[in-house]
């Protein structure tokens, strides 16, 4: 693909988001949630797509960020930006502390440990009702205006612009990271771990770093959800969050930042449209679509699009 075409497609992607603000003013709450989930899937992509480490418990960090930001606001500090950073810090800290556990042993062991950590956190949040509100959810999250100017409104305008801006900035950062030597080392580890070790790359340290980074990203996504909905429930830590995110990533195309975001967008839009059409049976159609895509498109939608473009370009 030529550089110009690549740039044009990227501009189209972000221009589409910005245009949605004007074209779809009545869908902004949904679009804000899509941007947040896209960020969450992006965080998963850093870990799964680039470093090749599969996790089934990524919701742990999403939930930690959500609860951290939510509780901070509930306790009287409703400033959004510092809330985001606090959510990221808490998630990153827990990521750093649990990384040695998760990275011990083989892939399957690690997978089980991530699942276990997420389950533990879910139950802990359920038990600590004095802090988290338990199964009732966290009440009384009140956000201040962003920079003292923009209030979170019912139409979701502020929530959308805020979420999209955070997504864009963190995407730029992620792009820098994955094209840095650190990012290349990660891909190397994914390709052939032993060889990277033989080359002298500190594989463990790199994996701990990307695990922590990915946790921080997920924490920010969770914090965004808590702030824009001004409510946190146990659902943020639920297993289905981790599983859905992995689905979206596979759907969009692993190991590509745009694949991650595209997967989130398509999954959320399809989910929304189908569940509105048939409130009882939408899961059936989602299932069919997933199977069809898994068979038709290796490398997700982005892989499929890439092959089509290559064929078109080759002619």
């Amino acid at each position, binding site marked *: 693909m030529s550089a110009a075409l690549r740039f044009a497609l990227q501009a189209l992607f972000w221009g589409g988001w910005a245009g949605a603000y004007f*074209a*779809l003013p*009545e*869908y*902004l*709450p*949904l679009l804000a*949630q899509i941007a947040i989930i896209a960020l969450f899937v992006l965080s998963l992509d850093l870990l799964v797509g680039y470093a090749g480490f599969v996790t089934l418990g990524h919701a742990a960090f999403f939930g930690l960020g959500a609860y951290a930001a939510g509780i901070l606001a509930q306790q009287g500090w409703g400033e959004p930006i510092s809330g985001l950073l606090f959510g990221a810090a808490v998630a990153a800290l827990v990521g750093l502390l649990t990384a040695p556990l998760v990275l011990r042993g083989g892939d399957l062991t690690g997978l089980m440990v991530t699942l276990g950590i997420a389950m533990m956190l879910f139950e802990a949040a*359920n038990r600590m009702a004095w802090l988290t509100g*338990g*199964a*009732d*959810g966290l*009440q009384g999250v009140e956000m201040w205006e962003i920079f003292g100017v923009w209030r979170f409104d*019912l*139409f*979701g305008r502020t929530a959308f612009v805020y979420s999209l801006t955070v997504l864009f900035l963190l995407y730029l950062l992620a792009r820098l990271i994955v094209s840095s030597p650190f990012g290349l080392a990660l891909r190397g580890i994914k390709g052939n771990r032993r060889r990277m070790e033989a080359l002298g790359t500190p594989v463990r340290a790199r994996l701990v770093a990307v695990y922590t980074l990915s946790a921080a990203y997920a924490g920010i996504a969770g914090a965004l*959800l808590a702030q824009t*909905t*001004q*409510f946190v*429930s*146990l*659902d*943020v830590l*639920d297993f*289905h969050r981790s599983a859905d995110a992995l689905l979206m990533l596979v759907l969009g195309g692993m190991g590509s930042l745009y694949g991650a975001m595209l997967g989130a967008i398509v999954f959320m839009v399809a989910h929304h*449209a189908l*569940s*509105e*059409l*048939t*409130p*009882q049976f*939408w*899961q059936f159609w989602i299932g069919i679509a997933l199977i069809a895509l898994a068979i038709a498109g290796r490398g997700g939608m982005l892989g499929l699009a890439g092959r089509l473009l290559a064929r078109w370009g080759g002619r």
Partner: protein
Amino acid sequence: MSSLSRRRLLGSAALVAAAPSLPRPAIAQAAPVRIGLILPMTGPFASTGRQIDAAVRTWLRMNGESHGGRRLEVLLRDDTGVAPDTTRRLAQELVVRERVNVLAGFGLTPLALSTAPVATEARVPMVVMAAGTSIIVQRSPFILRTSFTLPQQTMPIADWAASNGITSCATMVTDYAPGHDSEAAFKRRFTERGGQIPLELRTPLRNPDYAPFLQRVRDARVQALFVFVPSGEGANVMKQFDERGLAQAGIRLIGTGDLTDDDILNEMGDPAIGVITSHFYSAAHDSPENREYVAAFRQIAPNMRPNFMSVGGFDGMRLIAEGLRGTDGNTDGQRLVDAMRGKSWMSPRGPITIDANTRDIVQDVYIRRVERRDGQLWNIEFDRIPQVRDPGT
């Protein structure tokens, strides 16, 4: 789902799809009143959604669609029952995009709580048809409730136990907010009346195994066991209670009506017979209103028996219609809520009132025993405590 409402749903979905490109038509005076109905239609609490959805359609079939000079139009949305942020977002969308005049449904407490701020900010009445934690109505001046609260349902069975020679009773509740509510209410009333509670157990919400808990109850040698579990779990408890031989050990099973939910009571079989519960609705309630309701419900949903969730939906529709009649079709949120406050009528469950101050429901609570009639299991009411209000408010 009947073909008629499916067509309407598809139609509205098509409209939604076309909406961004089309200018919105000016809203005429006699435009329909839109009700955004948010229910768990999939997931673990789908039975609640299906019951209420069927009841809403039953109500429309029985009473027509025109009230206070306006046609009622129901927009159904599925929130899967487990994601409060989805419920809230759907409510936001219904208000902003579909311009609904009333929000309704809400299967579980967290779902209702997360949506309360939307109702307040949008100034739209929010009719809670299922969720049963006491605090919900206090979270927004626009919330009204047509279902029940757990303390309201629990107090009467504690009274009944104390008055019928039970002096020591264990409790077993599911470990989440409604469970805690009913545990606290039972404990307070039962000990006030001189009863002893030597054993308090909480079972997990997810994948519960009741056997070890019930064994401890058996070992504690109490006279009775009070149980609250979410509707749907009752069958499991009943089966384990029977298998562990608690009945033979002389322990009586009592609880709130969630335990003997009409939706699944018939499948529980013999172990359920003789269980005493307190609740506000039984499909076997003996009144002309209820007979008419059950018959009409069966026409909409031939394979279902209406349960207590359904009647919350049925009365929720009645409340909305009463409100519209009170305002002559005006849909201003505050005026609608004011018109709905203090309304009383004869529901299939018996006489009910939406309290003018608390906006919560005041209703009769019945003491029932499970009996077999005509080859089916029913909750047969044998005592009634008139006009119970939520003791928390």
